[in-house]
């Protein structure tokens, strides 16, 4: 039955996140971007709300909220409405936690989930991206080969968030044929032999404050027990779709922020004797921003709802991501245009949003829905 109805719980989570983002994120976004800093205080505050880890069940020390990709995309959109960088930072441990909840064996859950059910933000990240320009999760260069009871992993990962502090990484590697069914996820403690984390974090055009790291894996030997899902492995499609759709949800929040921010300005800014909003070239841009943001959101919801229903969400995810990536960059770009020269100056958030939009919309993602 086609329905856009959120559950009461989802409405509550949405509202709480919205308020948090308005109060804590929007006002610090520019300073964070300038100083390349992510305030620990804010990470901890968001963590207290359980935004990234609420689905950890009570037996592992969590709150035990229903595990729902839809709820997560709501959170991502709302956080990103405040600040896409902080949204990515706050939610990045989810790319370690959610796959563990979804695919982990009993032993794996018991060992790793309680570590992330505490009161303070605890970094953990998925290591997915690779340096080659033709990077594609269906064809990873990082490979894991099985030798007896261990897996030997070789490859290079980059753009791993919180690589400087994360206690554990979920390294995604190819184990079978090309395609998302040919990938596996391995739980690696940061001090495992053969893993080198670059001492310098990577500098990026957007999401600047996020400490991204490059990881080199040189014959890293991982025991079989650290293969996510044990003998069963994982559903590679569901894992990657969750990452992609969360990233798209962050784009939706950013796009909405741009549209909403441009409206009062366009009504106030006068050119040739009237507010620029009264000129159709501007008014129509704003109308399209609104329309596209709505469409993007529904596409993200559709993919997320399919993930929750445990049906193959690959097509819905690909369509959503394709659409969202294109429209987000267009909206952020037009955002700068509405503000003219002022959009280009670092006092206002427009140029930052454009850099963030370009960055997010070429990434697979670093958060899991």
């Amino acid at each position: 039955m086609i329905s856009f109805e959120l559950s009461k719980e989802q409405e509550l989570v949405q509202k709480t996140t919205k308020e948090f983002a308005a109060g804590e994120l929007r006002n610090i976004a520019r300073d964070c971007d300038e100083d390349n800093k992510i305030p620990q205080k804010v990470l901890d505050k968001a963590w207290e709300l359980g935004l990234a880890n609420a689905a950890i069940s009570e037996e592992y020390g969590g709150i035990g909220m229903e595990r729902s990709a839809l709820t997560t995309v709501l959170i991502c959109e709302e956080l990103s409405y405040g600040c896409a960088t902080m949204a990515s930072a706050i939610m990045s441990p989810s790319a370690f936690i959610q796959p563990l909840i979804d695919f982990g064996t009993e032993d794996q859950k018991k060992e790793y989930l309680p570590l992330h059910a505490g009161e303070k933000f605890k970094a953990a990240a998925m290591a997915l991206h690779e340096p080659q320009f033709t990077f594609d999760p269906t064809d990873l260069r990082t490979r894991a080969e099985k030798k007896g009871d261990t897996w030997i992993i070789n490859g290079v990962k980059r753009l791993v968030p919180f690589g400087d502090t994360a206690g554990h990484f979920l390294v995604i590697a190819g184990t079978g044929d090309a395609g998302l069914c040919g990938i596996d996820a391995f739980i690696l403690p940061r001090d495992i032999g053969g893993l080198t984390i670059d001492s310098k974090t990577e500098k990026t055009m957007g999401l600047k404050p996020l400490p991204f790291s490059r990881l080199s894996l040189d014959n890293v030997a991982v025991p079989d027990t650290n293969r996510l899902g044990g003998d069963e492995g994982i559903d590679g499609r569901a894992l990657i779709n969750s990452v992609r759709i969360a990233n798209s949800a962050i784009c939706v929040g950013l796009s909405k922020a741009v549209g909403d921010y441009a409206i009062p300005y366009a009504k106030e800014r006068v050119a040739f004797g009237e507010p620029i909003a009264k000129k159709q070239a501007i008014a129509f841009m704003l109308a399209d921003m609104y329309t596209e943001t709505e469409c993007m959101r529904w596409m993200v919801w559709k993919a997320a709802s399919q993930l929750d229903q445990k049906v193959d969400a690959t097509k819905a995810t690909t369509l959503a991501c394709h659409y969202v990536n294109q429209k987000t960059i267009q909206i952020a770009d037009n955002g700068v245009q509405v503000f003219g020269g002022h959009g280009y100056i670092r006092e206002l958030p427009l140029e930052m949003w454009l850099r963030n939009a370009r960055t997010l919309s070429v990434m697979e993602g670093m958060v899991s829905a």
Partner: protein
Amino acid sequence: MVDFSLNENDKNIIRALRKQGEVQRKYARYYDDHEEELAPDEFPEAAEFDYIKQMEADRGHDGCTPTVFFLLKTITEYRGDFLRLRLPPYALGNATLASVGTEEQQKKWGHMLLAMANTEPGCGSDSKAIETTATLDGDEWVLNGEKIFVSHGVRAGGVVVWATLDKSVGRGAIKAFLVPKYAPGFILAKEEKKMGNRYSDTAAIVFKDCRIPRENLLGLDETIKTKGGGGFKGLMKTFNLTRPFVSARGIGHVLACREFVTDELKKEGIEIDWEVGQYKRTAVQQKLIELEAELEAATLATMHAGWLADKGVYNNLEASVCKSKAGDISRKGPQLALEILGASGITHDQLVEKWFRDTRATDIYEGTAEIQRLVIARSILNYSSQELK
């Protein structure tokens, strides 16, 4: 719960409608080629699909909400073709009657196919600028003026005509009148020849001292409003209901194009692998994804507008959002499809070139692309129609 899946009942109905579409397509080319012939109200096979009505009656309450279901149905019917096996006794005039007519008027006129005439040679988008006048003479209204582009103007039993009681007043003096075909002074002046939608007649009608009874004023409110929209608001309210359906029709056609392209390419061994990255896709596959993504966006926006209507939420903004998006895709979708198909796509032996011509009108009638953007912009900027023209 947020959900985009269909239950078995609804799926079965959609399947049956797709089967019906195969029959619709049998006749589609003929009536495209023979524009001068009025397609019959009912084709021989129509009765064979009466069982769908029974399925609808039996769908129960756990399926899609009524408007959403009706939108899905419309998409699927128009995926078949514009040409329907049985013409529903329902056109834009009926929608106006339903939203602003009195109970008695609905009883008297509801059974009849009613066209709607607003557009004139001198104005279309700017519908408050109409010049057709209505003057009260004793117990009769006397209409004078010219209307063009009246869908079903030939076939319909009556026309809902928009006219002004006083041109100097503007919107507040515009009223809608029920004009039966046989009224004295009702002159069917012309049948247009169109790019597409040729099965459907489009008429120009001249009203020359056309006399109708006083009670044929829709809604029966004779007062001229100097403030606010007056009867004009009724027209706009009608559009909130009908715009999602115009969207659904456009979407149905684009869906037909999209399926045709995917099926044909599949025969040539070209299919989309949904999980691979862009390096592993050809430009054609990338275009197919773009086509499908835009189609999906328009579809979901349309469902959203319908879903809000079912919840009783005012959906003026969302109706224009979906119409704007569906208008876009109804142009871009068939264009992309033909671009992918190449030269053989534009030939007469299949229908895709026809769908391209048919669905182009989606972004024109019931508010052009630009008018939808005006409505959306006014709504989000909180501007009146005076403040943003």
